[in-house]
């Protein structure tokens, strides 16, 4: 008899790992398809990181501007992602997000309204028309709560029909999956532990949907919660799936770096739009020194001109604080590295000395209240200390655009939301993440259900695999010679933040890979004090393994891609290179090591590429691609003439 016989076992048709927007939407879909569905939540039900989303969910409903439609949304998404997006995902997303939003209303969501009673939509960076369905600045919370309550309502139906709330859909809260179990190349189940008790749990299921979110916890300054340790990315890799676009991380240039209580929290760009300026420790407004030649025509050269812009934008050029995010972040980085940073390692964002307290409170009410409440920082009285903060990972599991099924050599594995890659290309537009969760959550859940239907025999969980998983999970508790997991996490964060951060250089990336290899040795020997009951040190020790492998993917891909595009900025290759647009970098695991391969991007269908102007395409495409485009246009012209 082995130890594995005492492990709690469950049989499900579909297991959804992750209980944020994508996971809950996938679970709803699988349950509606009649599948017995489990939702695994690392936190309590309804606490997922989706609640942090403020702006809204992008969907071309055309409620505010009737000229909006899916084609315009598609164009905006491709532009935002610098044409590296998987075009099919961007297309599906643009087409289906309105239905997904309307559907939420039937679950009980209450969005802000227009005058004629429709869902109101707001403007956002990169979106041509007002497009974001929103609820004040708490849209993510509304989305999570709505999906949570929909699941409850499905459970109530099951209670009436079968006498048990858990009959067909059950939430396992505070449960972490450490391993996917395979039968050959098919998913057979998932192994994990209850955080509360430390007891192990085994799910036998033919289909698994990953919806675990991002990787931000590998960075020192991040807006992400502890859950964001790249679990899904790592589980997929170890199960034989592939990751793409891992070099692309979205950093916001102005996250708070001080005080600690608000470290990482974003300071909205409108602070700069409303007059806030960036200063170094000498009190100098340094952005004037960092205007690149290509932007010089649009941006002011003197403080006087810049200050006139706020009231008279037609006759003056923009202040350089309003350069694109990556430029601002680069400038902040340079100032800090030159020793002119703030005490906490950022720079000063000053609006207090430039606008009256009343005006600041009126124009930036939520910023004012947030910092007042959380940090006792009065932004009307003192400057903020800000620096780049890790916000979102564009890269993730490489999936089939229509079904969300993972590529690589594994079947029965699906992914949706931030953990999947391709949809956002090299840079995500604000508002596209919430709609992404809904569109691809539904698709992944539905396709996981039909995959489970199509199986003739259930894959079997092998006993020895479970034994191995138990051993791996218990190892940190049984060692007492290794290092403290918190120290290792700090070291990992330091490597990633300092060497694979917002601005990257070849030498630093190579150095990072060496250090990550050293960390790998140390993480393999990590030890956790205490017992199995709700022991955060042990939990972190198990998460470290995932954070490490995902960090290796990011560092390797960042070293390989010799250009700057969206969320990947190389100081040594500052330009966007059309040849690199044709390439996705794909990570796979060979034994323990990350293997990187180049893969050509799928070619956009004619009717989709035809939505763009040639002048715009010229910025992104190679000459050969442009020639193809011209031929296409000529053909279409001839067809019209006939």
């Amino acid at each position, binding site marked *: 008899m082995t130890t594995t016989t005492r492990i709690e076992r469950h049989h499900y048709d579909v297991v959804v790992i992750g209980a944020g927007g994508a996971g809950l939407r996938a679970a709803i879909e699988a349950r509606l398809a009649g599948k017995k569905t489990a939702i695994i939540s690392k936190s309590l039900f309804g*606490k997922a990181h989706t609640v942090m989303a403020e702006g809204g969910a992008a969907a071309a409903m055309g409620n505010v501007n009737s000229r909006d439609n899916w084609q315009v949304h598609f164009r905006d998404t491709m532009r935002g992602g610098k044409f590296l997006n998987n075009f099919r995902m961007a297309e599906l997303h643009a087409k289906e997000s309105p239905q997904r939003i309307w559907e939420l209303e039937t679950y009980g969501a209450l969005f802000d309204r227009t005058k004629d009673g429709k869902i109101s939509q707001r403007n956002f960076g990169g979106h041509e028309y007002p497009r974001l369905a929103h609820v004040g600045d708490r849209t993510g919370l509304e989305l999570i709560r709505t999906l949570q309550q929909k699941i409850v309502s499905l459970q109530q139906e099951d209670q009436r029909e079968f006498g048990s709330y858990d009959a067909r859909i059950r939430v396992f809260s505070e449960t972490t999956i450490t391993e996917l179990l395979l039968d050959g190349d098919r998913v057979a189940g998932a192994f994990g532990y209850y955080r509360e008790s430390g007891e192990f749990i085994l799910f036998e299921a033919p289909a698994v949907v990953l919806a675990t979110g991002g990787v931000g916890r590998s960075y020192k300054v991040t807006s992400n919660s502890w859950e964001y340790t790249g679990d899904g990315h790592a589980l997929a890799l170890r199960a034989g799936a592939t990751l793409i676009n891992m070099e692309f991380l979205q950093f916001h240039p102005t996250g708070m770096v001080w005080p600690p209580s608000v470290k990482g929290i974003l300071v909205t760009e409108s602070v700069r739009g409303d007059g806030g300026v960036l200063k170094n420790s000498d009190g100098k407004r340094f952005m004037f020194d960092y205007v690149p030649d290509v932007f010089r025509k649009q941006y002011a050269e003197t403080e006087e001109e810049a200050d006139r812009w706020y009231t008279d934008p037609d006759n003056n050029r923009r202040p350089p604080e309003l350069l694109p995010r990556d430029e601002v972040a680069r400038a902040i980085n340079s100032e800090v590295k030159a020793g002119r940073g703030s005490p906490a390692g950022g720079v000063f964002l000053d609006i207090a000395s430039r606008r009256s307290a009343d005006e600041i409170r009126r124009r930036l009410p939520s910023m004012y209240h947030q910092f007042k409440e959380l940090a006792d920082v009065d932004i009307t009285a003192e400057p903020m200390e800000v620096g780049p903060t890790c916000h979102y990972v564009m890269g993730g599991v490489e999936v089939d655009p229509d079904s969300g099924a993972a590529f690589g050599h594994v079947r029965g594995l699906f992914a949706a939301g931030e953990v999947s890659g391709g949809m956002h290309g090299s840079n995500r537009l604000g508002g596209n993440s919430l709609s992404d969760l809904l569109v691809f959550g539904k698709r992944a859940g539905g396709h996981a259900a039909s995959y489970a239907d199509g199986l003739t025999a259930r894959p079997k969980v092998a006993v020895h695999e479970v034994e191995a998983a138990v051993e791996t999970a218990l190892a940190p508790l049984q060692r007492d010679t290794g290092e403290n997991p918190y120290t290792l996490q700090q070291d990992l964060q330091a490597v990633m933040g300092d060497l694979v951060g917002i601005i990257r250089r070849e030498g630093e990336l190579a150095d990072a890979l060496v250090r990550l290899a050293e960390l790998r040795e140390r993480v393999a020997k990590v030890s956790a004090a205490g017992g199995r009951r709700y022991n955060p040190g*042990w939990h972190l020790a198990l998460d470290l393994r995932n954070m490490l492998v995902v960090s290796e993917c990011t560092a390797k891909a960042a070293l390989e891609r010799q250009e700057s595009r969206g969320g990947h900025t190389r100081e040594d290759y500052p330009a966007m290179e059309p040849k690199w647009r044709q390439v996705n970098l794909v990570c796979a695991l060979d034994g323990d090591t990350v293997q990187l391969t180049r893969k050509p991007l799928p070619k956009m269908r004619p009717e989709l590429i035809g939505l763009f102007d040639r002048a715009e395409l010229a910025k992104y495409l190679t000459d050969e691609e442009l020639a193809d485009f011209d031929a296409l246009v000529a053909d279409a012209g001839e067809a019209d003439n006939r």
Partner: protein
Amino acid sequence: MSGKRQFRIWRGDESGGDLQDYMVEVNEGEVVLDVIHRLQATDAPDLACRWNCKAGKCGSCSMEINGKPRLGCMTRMSTFGDDETVTVTPLRTFPVIRDLVTDVSFNYEKARETPAFAPPADVAPGDYRMQQVDVERSQEFRKCIECFLCQTVCHVIRDHEENKQAFSGPRYFIRAAELDMHPLDARTDRKEYAQAEQGLGFCNITKCCTEVCPEHIKITDNGIIPMKERVVDRRYDPLVWLGSKIFRRGETPQTSVTTARQGSATPGSARGGVHSHAGGSHDSRAETQAQSGVNWHREVPHPTAPAVDDRGKLPLTELTFDRAAAPSPFGDDVTFPLPPEHLNFAHPEQDNKH
């Protein structure tokens, strides 16, 4: 203000435990949760504590700090005296799992028992039409981050395990209120349900829940009290009883804000605006002022015109009005004596001091 500070943290599990003393470094600008994280990284790596967003948005890090239910991420160290000991204990109302982590499954069970939103049968997705003023009432309650501080502070269950069976708690009263006020919810028995199944009657409006709410939801004033009032109206009011015999329930012409529902996809905006000196005003600034204490210069809320029907008359008759006797000229939601902070009296001498 950096330096070592004295912390007393409850360590233990369901079999027992006690407060343990820690001297821990505290830096300027930190909150209690930062200090707990530092303890985990140094002296107590296995100290159990829930947290997620660390920005007051997820409601995970609920704990009792110096006896008060708070969010760890929103309790600044600067609010304590320099040599004050900070005592952190788990939520008292729920069973301890370990250290600061409690078993909050009570709340999820009550959530499952509360009937879900019932979509209107004949409205297709995309055809929902609601007015902003109508959704705002429910939206206030949907701000809830489910930190369960209102649940832990509620004295009905805080020290009375035996009440838990029959009492859902403030979180689920506002859930019922939210659905009751939802312009398109197809169920009409939310209040009756709250009274009969959720134990609304146990609540005697001590307002502790409103006090601890980190989202500043007016749980009692805007959620519980309106629910209680309407339940009382329906149960005991002979005129409403008579009306309900003449008109079928749901077709009864309603005038009060919280029950105004046309039952169609396009309900009118708040027709019968409550005009009052107290909570019913739509002037949120005046309300905030009222909450922050006596303000002798407070402006009187703008009077709101009553809603009239097509003929320009008040839509009232004795038979259809929802309570006995004439309505109060001060508004139905005003009780006397008025709280002093709602008064607009300017004291001649105090005037000079300000």
